[in-house]
């Protein structure tokens, strides 16, 4: 192996290209499968991007920060740390995240390029390199501190293995870093890790984590002050269910965490997480209270956490849940639906709701479990619609009890009420005195629930 390395170094000319002004841009190291096959040794490059050089990275010297005039230590600094690179290719989202972060705030964005090290067929080698890379990065941040930067203005954004790497950096700096964002922290080799051996809330003043693939490449459990679980944190909608889909079968769920975060940075999707003990409780509509965060709403995934930060630090580790659609803009529109029946006998069923606006409609199927309809008792459910219809003109409702033989039961509703959760400014919709045969759809015009009762 050792005789190959010098040869590699000759081949691996750091990706440099001439920009228009004649100054050279430093790009993310591009490796290919053969490098991964042979293995790479760790080499950490720090590529600086600011609002004035968004498309042209500048490699920073680890020790002489002043050699790069664009690096302004008075501004906050965000580090973007990628994870394991089994193919050696640069992550497709690097440019994207740099641009979106620059939109949030005028800051230094440093892409931590440890592709040499992360690009390995052997995952375990990459895992051992995280410690070394973390040491390297810790040294750099300490230099920053010596030069006058404040640790609290440092934000580490780590993807997969990069999330643990960020955690190690945070631990090395005794948790004084401002914030660590972990995007689906890597699971393999970390499942039985102690908090010191992985990302945990003590690594920074504020740690927020997004989970999308806990059942394969992601890590189960809670690792931050706030843990967002997209669709329960495991299988994501729109991701292939079988191996026949090829590469995306493996990476789709895991990569979704990055896309959700990008989408949140872009503000095209506002994904509100509801604090809950489990995803099934969330789906049952049992966790739709946001009182703890008043006057703010429930936490929204994204860059700006200032509204919730103090509450979350007080609450301790909080798990929040939300559902998404399969594609951009990922957000679902949720309504809390309360129904009261007057049937003498208990009935069980699943509910299908459609909202109509003109010729458009959107459907929610609340069929993950049978709902209980008891006389004079409110049945609460969470209806999540893929589309956000501005003005709901008609609602159609169908209840199925799953009865194949026997009489067709009737469900008698005293009242049904729709509370828009994501848009508190919209009116509550009500309907009273509905009688419906099972499996038959009833359509009605909702009326505003009168508040002056």
């Amino acid at each position: 192996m050792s005789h190959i390395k010098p040869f590699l170094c000759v081949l691996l000319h750091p990706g440099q290209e001439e920009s228009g002004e004649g100054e050279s841009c430093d790009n993310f190291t591009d490796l290919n499968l053969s490098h991964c096959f042979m293995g790479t040794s760790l080499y950490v490059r720090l590529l600086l991007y600011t609002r004035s050089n968004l498309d042209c990275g500048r490699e920073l010297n680890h020790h002489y920060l002043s050699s790069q005039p664009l690096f302004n230590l008075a501004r906050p600094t965000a580090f973007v740390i990628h994870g394991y690179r089994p193919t050696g290719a640069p992550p497709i989202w690097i440019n994207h995240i740099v641009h979106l972060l620059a939109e949030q705030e005028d800051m230094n964005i440093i892409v931590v390029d440890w592709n040499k090290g992360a690009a390995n067929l052997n995952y375990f080698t990459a895992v051992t390199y995280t410690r070394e890379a973390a040491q390297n990065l810790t040294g750099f941040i300490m230099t920053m501190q010596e030069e006058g930067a404040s640790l609290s203005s440092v934000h580490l954004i780590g993807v997969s293995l990069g999330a643990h790497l960020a955690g190690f950096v945070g631990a090395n700096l005794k948790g004084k870093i401002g914030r660590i964002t972990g995007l689906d922290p890597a699971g393999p080799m970390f499942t039985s890790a102690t908090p010191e051996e992985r990302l945990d809330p003590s690594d920074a003043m504020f740690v927020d984590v997004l989970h999308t693939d806990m059942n394969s490449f992601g890590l189960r459990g809670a690792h931050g002050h706030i843990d967002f679980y997209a669709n329960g944190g495991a299988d994501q909608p729109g991701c292939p269910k079988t191996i026949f889909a090829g590469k995306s079968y493996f990476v789709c769920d895991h990569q979704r965490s990055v896309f959700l975060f990008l989408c949140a940075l872009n503000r095209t999707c506002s994904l509100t997480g509801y604090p809950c003990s489990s995803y099934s409780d969330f789906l049952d509509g049992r966790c739709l209270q946001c009182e703890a965060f008043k006057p703010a709403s429930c936490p929204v995934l994204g860059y700006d956490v200032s509204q919730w930060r103090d509450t979350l630090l007080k609450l301790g580790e909080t798990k929040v849940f939300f559902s998404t659609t399969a594609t951009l803009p990922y957000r679902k529109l949720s309504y809390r639906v309360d129904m009261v029946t007057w049937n003498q006998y208990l009935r069980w069923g699943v509910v299908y709701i459609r909202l109509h606006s003109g010729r458009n409609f959107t459907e929610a199927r609340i069929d993950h479990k049978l709902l209980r309809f008891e006389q004079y008792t409110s049945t609460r459910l969470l209806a999540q619609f893929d589309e956000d219809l501005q003005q709901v003109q008609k609602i159609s409702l169908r209840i199925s009890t799953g009865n194949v033989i026997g009489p067709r039961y009737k469900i008698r509703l005293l009242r049904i009420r729709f509370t828009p959760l994501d848009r508190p400014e919209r009116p509550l919709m009500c309907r009273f005195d509905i009688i419906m045969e099972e499996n038959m759809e009833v359509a009605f015009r909702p009326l505003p629930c009168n508040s002056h009762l």
Partner: protein
Amino acid sequence: MESNSWRRASMDNIELLPVTTNGNDGRVSASNGDGVPSRNADATERDALLTGQSTTSTGQNGQMLPDGNAAEAQRDLENTGIPHEISAVSRIKGELKEVIFWKVRLWMVIIFIFLLIFAVIIISLAACAASYKDPDEDFDPSLFKVPRYFNGSFQLPNLVFTEELSNLSTNKSQELAADFQEKLADLYRSSPALGRYFSKAEISAFRNGSVIADYQLTFLMPEEEQDQLRNFTLSREMVYNVFRQFLYDQEPDESKPMYIDPVSLIMFLTH
């Protein structure tokens, strides 16, 4: 039928005709000629079935019965050497036919029984479903004795208030009151939840303010489960909203004289 049997007979005739060349001309053709007009289809079939048996009795001694029919005679002539085999084969055939017939019958019976059981199940299920009495539709109005009153008012923006309307004894106001009483009664009677408890609706006065109508609703409820009815089905919220919903659903034609402004609806529970 007649023509049919005739055709069959002539078929026999055609079949037999070439045989006549075998020698025994006179007899066969004679008997044939005799048989044709008198035979019917049944006779022909029976003859065909009987041949086997009759040959066993007659063919053994190589004799021909004088009154044997044409076919028999002809067959004997054709296969003089193997009368035994013919008889055995046809006997087996006969037996086989019989056994198969019985088996078919047996398994048809079994299928029939199954079908019957199935049909009985289906019919009973259908009967059960048809005769299912929804416990929620089963109630005894004679038990509904405890009254519950609601009072309130609504505004009729398209009517002009006159002195005539203020006095409920005038014709015009009585007519108008009757119209609204009917409207209210219809709306509550057709309500699935409230219909059974509804007793009457009265318009008690028309007041100035374009026109404001005061009304009273009376519901009757059973002694038992009174509390739950008060809290849910016959709550003010429910009675009020059933009315309000009706007003929201009405034709959005706001120029009609009977138009009630939904926002103006007020309702109180009267004790």
